[in-house]
């Protein structure tokens, strides 16, 4: 009896999946638009291999579109390629390329308008103005897409994944390369960004504006203008990400601007000009991160308050930290500093002498950038050594009272 019901349920499930349409040169429907016109909600449209130049394709029904052998949808550099104006749409296995360029209505490769539960999986987006554009939408899943663009300057290229006034999005496992911002969030809340590889974008790898309660985990940000910029946002959780080689005159691994109550943990910062630049950020916890081979480990401006920087490794950075004022309202505790030369008599693995991570030269450079021409000169190392022994110019409270003797395993 039980089996009968299960089979019945299965059968019902199959019958509910709707009709199937095939699009392709050897198939009943030659164009995608003709198949979409006759389909109804719950149907599936299979697009077979081929090049489809059909202008702007609008999806207004809850259907599933699946590409077989990666068909190419081309916008001819004039049109937005796929516009999704219905909820419960799935797009899978397509290659969407050459969308139009317009600065007023922002055409995208795939653009979602006021929809919920739209799924965009396993597509290739090639040379579009905006890659995937989500606006006024909720609960969308963007997974395993590859987004490649060839932006030269910020004005002429859009973002890889652009999200505007949305909620509960999932952006997972995408490869984003050569856009303006890899992923852009503005007024997007309660969303998660996970396991993406974001490289070589002109401006930021990931950009938060006025977005709250979001998280990003286990992403890789390499060689972007700046790895991640978090601006005017609250309660962002950032864990286990890697920030690599964001290297250039104004490049940062991670940029904080007017944010509060964020949590930054378990990240690796390697070879960035400045690993973290904190400007007006409050009540943020920075812990268990590794800062290695950066120009600056942590640039913390004097307008930052009540941040806790604890249990991080600072290894082989030119400057571990720098600041632009004399006031410090943040707490440094139990970090490992490779430049620390104190001792540990009671063997509790915490140095007995407090450590002052701020070098005199970094203070000088902050107030007078031209002093950078003395970089690595004998005079500067002499100044730094004497300041370490008898601190007189660096802020008194810029101190780690419990420096660790050996690096944390992170």
């Amino acid at each position, binding site marked *: 009896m039980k089996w009968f019901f299960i089979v019945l349920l299965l059968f019902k499930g199959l019958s509910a999946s709707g009709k199937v349409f095939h699009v392709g040169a050897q198939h009943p429907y030659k164009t995608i638009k003709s198949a979409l016109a006759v389909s109804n909600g719950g149907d599936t449209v299979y697009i077979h291999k081929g090049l489809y130049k059909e202008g702007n394709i609008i999806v207004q029904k809850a259907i599933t579109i699946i590409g077989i052998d990666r068909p190419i949808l081309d916008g001819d550099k004039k049109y937005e390629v796929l516009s999704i104006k219905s909820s419960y749409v799935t797009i899978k296995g397509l290659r969407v390329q050459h969308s139009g360029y317009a600065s007023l209505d922002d055409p995208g490769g795939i653009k979602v308008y006021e929809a919920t539960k739209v799924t965009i999986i396993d597509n290739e987006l090639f040379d579009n103005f905006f890659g995937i554009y989500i606006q006024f939408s909720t609960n969308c899943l963007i997974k395993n897409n590859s987004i490649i663009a060839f932006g030269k300057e910020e004005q002429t290229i859009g973002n890889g994944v652009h999200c505007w006034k949305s909620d509960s999005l999932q952006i997972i496992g995408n490869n984003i390369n050569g856009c303006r911002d890899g992923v852009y969030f503005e007024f997007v809340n309660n969303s998660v960004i996970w396991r993406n590889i974001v490289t070589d974008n002109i401006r930021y790898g990931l950009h938060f504006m006025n977005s709250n309660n979001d998280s990003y985990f286990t992403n890789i940000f390499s060689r972007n203008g700046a790895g991640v910029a978090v601006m005017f946002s609250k309660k962002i959780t950032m864990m286990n990400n890697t920030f690599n080689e964001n*290297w*250039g*005159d104004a*490049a940062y691994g991670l940029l904080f601007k007017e944010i509060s109550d964020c949590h930054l943990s378990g990240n690796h910062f390697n070879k960035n*000009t*400045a690993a973290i630049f904190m400007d007006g950020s409050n009540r943020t916890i920075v812990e268990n991160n590794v800062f290695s081979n950066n*120009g*600056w480990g942590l640039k913390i401006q004097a307008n930052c308050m009540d941040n806790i920087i604890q249990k991080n490794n600072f290894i*082989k950075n*030119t*400057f571990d930290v720098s600041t632009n004022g004399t006031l410090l309202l943040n707490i440094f505790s139990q970090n490992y500093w490779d430049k620390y030369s104190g001792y540990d008599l009671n063997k509790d693995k915490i140095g007995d002498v407090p450590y002052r991570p701020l070098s005199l030269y970094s203070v*000088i450079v902050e*107030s*007078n*950038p*031209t*002093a*950078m*021409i*003395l*970089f*690595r*000169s*004998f*005079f*500067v190392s*002499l100044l730094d050594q004497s300041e370490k022994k008898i601190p007189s110019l660096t802020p008194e409270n810029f101190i780690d009272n419990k420096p660790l003797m050996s690096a944390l395993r992170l």
Partner: protein
Amino acid sequence: MGRIFKYVMLDILKNKFVIAYMVMMSLVAWSAFTLEDNSAKGMLTLLNLILLTVPLVSVLFSAIYIYNSSEFIELLVSHPIKRSKIWLSLYWGLCGSLATAFIIGAGIPLLLFAEFTISLLMLVVGILITVIFVSLALLSTIIYRDKAKGIGLTILIWIYFALLFDGILLFLMFQFADYPIEKPMVLMTALSPLDLSRILLLLQLDSTAIMGYTGAIFRNFFGNTVGMSISFTLLILWSTIPFLVSLKKFKKKDL
């Protein structure tokens, strides 16, 4: 000239101090490259060596050598040899032997471990610094007949270029902090061969990005061939002008 040059060169190369200098250079250079996990760190250690040890050894050793061979110089002057030939052979002998010590000591590990173009640049700069400080030493031995004063002057020269000059630069930077002083600073660095060499090498060592705006100005100037050739010309001027002044004085000097 050839025979005096050969004699001076061999005499210095047999000197225990120069052999010790060579051994120390190679020890530091080999350990810098084998102990550090990446060659960039080794390059920085070598940079410090070139900017501190090389000038100190060159300037001190040359001055002491000239003072110690004053009798030999007097003997040569009594022979029918042009004075300029004597002084030139001493100069080339000192430069040749100290540069050989530097090339053998630091050059081999450099060429083995580091990128070829950068290590070549480093070698050339190291040799130029050697030559510059030999010529400064010759000048100070001509200025003072007294050994103590002359050697004192050479030490002062070293302290000035290695330390005091940067202090003065920093002082000026703070005095003129309200003005756009980046470009004048490029000119100022030309007044010190050590600063010029340091910036020239740092621009090749991939640390310009953290030097920010100033670094960009320096890269614009030194990064292209014109800037490179200007700075090398400056270094060559630094190595010839003090020597030419000393040569002029030596010709007329009452020994």
